[in-house]
């Protein structure tokens, strides 16, 4: 027994001593190749995941035995023609590069159906579609700019009229305001000789303040509030910022000399003089966030402040310069019209009248020293005519954008020119809206003005990339 035990021990020890290094080398992509390329070589791999999954994989002319999602391993460095084929969908084909020891990740390949899945949501004619960012609400307006407004909840598929109180129907709204993330809509107008500020939430009674006195001519250009605390409304006219308290039903001066502001996480972020500052919504704890930020903006005048995470803010000047509080600060010099930020992947999408660009923050962990954030900027599209809006789609892998009245799907590629597919046309003067939460593009039909949608990503079929990246935290860590 003792001899047997020793023999087994040495056998296992030998297996470990021989097997462990091999396992490590294999894990790092090394393998032994026989034949003409004899020797130890380091291979790479391709990770493929499609929506919907189950596509057949062809590498060169040969069918790979697995379907997506899948990992094609042991590939020598080079370029591989990959073709993904799924019944009822257009094939997807690219020439994919592979590097030694690296993974080429195609984790969000979207297969386009041969028969698009169109849906009609409301068989009524609308003129305007306004999305409330970061919510599942759309505002739909009939009869031009002064017609009645409805709220459509695309998640529950329910529709509500805005401002239900009978006396308000004929007078409200003169001006409508929305705030990202808030399910409330604000109306400001005159009624009975008073300025009235009314906040309406789906399925709830309106709350509001009546405001009389010297502010008869009060006509704010901007009204913003915290999505989680709708007690205080911050209204800007010229460079003065007023605060309305819906509980106390009064309004008062809050800040002056304000060039731009935003409300986030119970704090008012504002630009005053040269500096970017913040103050609690109650008026306490003022704090300078970025002193002398003005030097990066390059111009005077109004600034749009777009907070996207507790420590990341974008500034958009009147001339379209896009700046952030993280190095390298200036993202685009001019002409930017709008931005969208993918928090999960820390990716920014911005567009000018003729181009769409992206910026991505990546944490690099050098072998020695502290991790550092690096920005990678890319121009995704050039030569547009009049780009209206753009959205990240399918977890930041695609872009849905509207150019004039046409909506397109753009597939950026790390190793080739982007591909653009035209999807549909929308009603003149209206804007489409896309959200990854629904996987659908909502729009007003070109001819009928009906609320329609096109399913872009079959959500129930989408599989997550294994061990998804959590980079949102990294940004906070690096603060």
């Amino acid at each position: 027994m003792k001899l047997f035990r020793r023999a087994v021990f040495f056998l296992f020890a030998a297996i470990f001593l021989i097997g462990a290094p091999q396992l490590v080398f294999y894990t790092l992509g090394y393998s032994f190749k026989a034949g003409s390329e004899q020797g130890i070589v380091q291979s790479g791999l391709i990770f493929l995941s499609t929506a919907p999954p189950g596509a057949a994989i062809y590498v060169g002319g040969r069918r790979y035995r697995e379907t997506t999602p899948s990992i094609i391993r042991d590939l020598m460095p080079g370029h591989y023609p990959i073709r993904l084929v799924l019944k009822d969908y257009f094939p997807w084909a690219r020439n994919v590069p592979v590097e030694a020891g690296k993974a080429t990740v195609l984790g969000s390949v979207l297969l386009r159906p041969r028969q698009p899945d169109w849906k009609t949501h409301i068989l009524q004619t609308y003129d305007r579609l306004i999305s409330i960012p970061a919510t599942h609400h759309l505002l739909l307006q009939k009869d031009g700019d002064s017609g009645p407004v409805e709220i459509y909840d695309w998640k529950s598929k329910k529709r509500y009229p805005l401002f239900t109180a009978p006396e308000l129907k004929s007078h409200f709204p003169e001006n409508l305001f929305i705030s990202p993330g808030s399910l409330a809509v604000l109306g400001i107008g005159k009624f009975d000789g008073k300025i009235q500020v009314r906040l309406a939430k789906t399925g709830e009674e309106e709350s509001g303040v009546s405001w009389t006195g010297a502010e008869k001519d009060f006509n704010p250009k901007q009204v913003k509030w915290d999505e989680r605390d709708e007690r205080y409304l911050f209204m800007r006219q010229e460079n003065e910022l007023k605060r309305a308290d819906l509980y106390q039903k009064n309004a008062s001066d809050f800040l002056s000399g304000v060039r731009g502001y935003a409300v986030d996480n119970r704090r008012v972020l504002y630009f005053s003089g040269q500096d970017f500052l913040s103050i609690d919504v109650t008026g306490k704890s003022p704090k300078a966030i970025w002193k002398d930020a003005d030097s990066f903006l390059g111009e005077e005048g109004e600034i749009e402040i777009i907070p996207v995470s507790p420590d990341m803010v974008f500034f958009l000047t009147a001339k379209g310069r896009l700046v952030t509080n993280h190095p390298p600060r200036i993202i685009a010099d001019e002409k930017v019209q709008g931005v969208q930020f993918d928090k999960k992947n820390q990716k920014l999408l911005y567009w000018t009248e003729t181009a769409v660009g992206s910026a991505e923050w990546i944490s690099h962990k050098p072998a020695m020293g502290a991790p550092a954030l690096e920005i990678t900027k890319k121009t995704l599209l050039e030569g547009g005519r009049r780009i209206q809006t753009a959205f990240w789609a399918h977890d930041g892998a695609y872009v849905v954008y509207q150019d004039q009245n046409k909506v397109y799907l753009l597939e950026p590629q790390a190793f080739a020119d982007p591909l653009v597919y035209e999807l549909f046309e929308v009603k003149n003067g209206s804007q489409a809206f896309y959200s990854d939460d629904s996987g659908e593009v909502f729009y007003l039909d070109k001819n009928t003005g009906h609320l329609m949608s096109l399913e872009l990503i079959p959500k129930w079929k989408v599989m997550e990339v294994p061990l998804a990246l959590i980079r949102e935290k990294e940004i906070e860590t690096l603060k």
Partner: protein
Amino acid sequence: MSQFHFSRRKLSGGARVFERALEILPGLTSWSILIGLILLSVFQPVCAAIIIIVFEFYWLLRLFYLTLFLMLSYTRLSLEDKTNWLERVRKVDDFMRNGALSGSGAASGWKSKISESIFQKELKRLRAASSPPPLSADIYHLVIVPILKETAEILEPSIQSFVQGSFSPKQIFVVLAVEERAEKAVHEAAFALQAKYGNRFFDFLIVKHPDGLEGEARVKGANASFAAKAAHQVLVSRSIAPEQVIVSCFDADTVVSFDYFACLTYCFMVFPDRQRASFQPIPVYHNNIWDVPGFARILETGASFFQLTEASHPDRLVTFSSHSMSFKALVEVGYWPVDMVSDDSAIFWKAFFHYDGDYRTVPMFTTLSMDVVNAGGWWQTCVSVYKQKRRWAWGVENFPIVTRGFLQSKKIPIFERLRHGCKLFEGHIAWATWPFILGVIGWLPPFFTSREFSDSVIYYTAPRISGIIFNLASVSLLTTIVLSLMLLPKAKIKYSFFRRAVHALEWLAIPLVAIFFSALPALEAQTRLMLAKYMEFWVSDKKR
């Protein structure tokens, strides 16, 4: 024989400082491994992933190795299923008287044939040895049962199993070692049992252990040692030499099998170095196996399996829980340590150093059954099980003492010292860290990934290799499940096939059970030792 000072008490100066350093070492190592791997996962995930893959491969091989020997040990145990140990004892008696076997070789069936062949081999070894054993009629069993809060309900089945065994109770000397601080009902129960069973045994003694004797901690070993000394006086007064006596220190809930004392007598007789040996049966926890929560069931079955695997390595075997040994050795080494919680393993080490390494534990391929911890409710049982495992893991207190002993010893071969020392250290570190690494930390690198890591081959390959390793490990788990079902007591009607099937499924919870009821208490025990927060004996709740 060495005069090694076993106790950590009364050490002074540099020796005390060195002992403290050794006390800190296991906890420090475990914490360093866990924290180091977490930090590595955060800051160097590629490096962490490689270390974890290598570790998982090592773990897989260890698992296969242990499973192989678990199967062999189980086979060895099942070979002796039908062995009539008393008959074997008689045959050894005959062999000693006549120098030859009378009426042997009538075994039928492959198991009996192998068992018979092992028997013949052991007789051959005995013949070659220069130390003939006493005849079985001259051998006495001293059974010490330390008691603190165990009631008659727990104790009586134990006593009954001694009486009802094949070996004559008239050669069994029972000592109930009752703590003076125990409740009155416990004392009364002991006396009631003495009155009921006293005349069935060679003798039945109740020894009250006073509280707070100098140099003693409130531990079981102090009570057992006090009782053993009292029993020694009785044996001397009745002219019975320690060489004729085998002492067993049993937990109060220990129920021995019908042939247990016969098997023990046989093992004692055929082992040439019987006066320098402990005898370790396989502990099973079948007394109330179906009355406890599932996690406690698989945990105790795991403990049995561990002991079964250890039994296949007699040269590394250390005594655990209820065990027996030569009474002569016990007297010569100065009885059980009186200031240590882990008296069961400590007595082995004490004897090992006393005899300069010339001491071993002989595995007995028979079982004795104990209770699984049961505190009534599910949560209370969780707490009790946790505390029991912490007490078991407190066996780490042996490490500084044993290491000190090894460093001081000149006579124990260096290879022996290294082998035992490394096994003891690695065993405790593995106990406290492996389940955490396998269940939690091993999965961390992908969650702290940078772009460099997420775009590398290892990011995609490592989880695949881990998956293959865990799938292969399930072969071991399956073997364990089958063996656990085979080891269970023969089914009573009320424990149906369905119940057994559920027990098999309970094994799937092993990763969680291993973390919360094995690694965590072990880590706490090591941390306590590291911080000099010494434990005292805590009696497990056992209810039926």
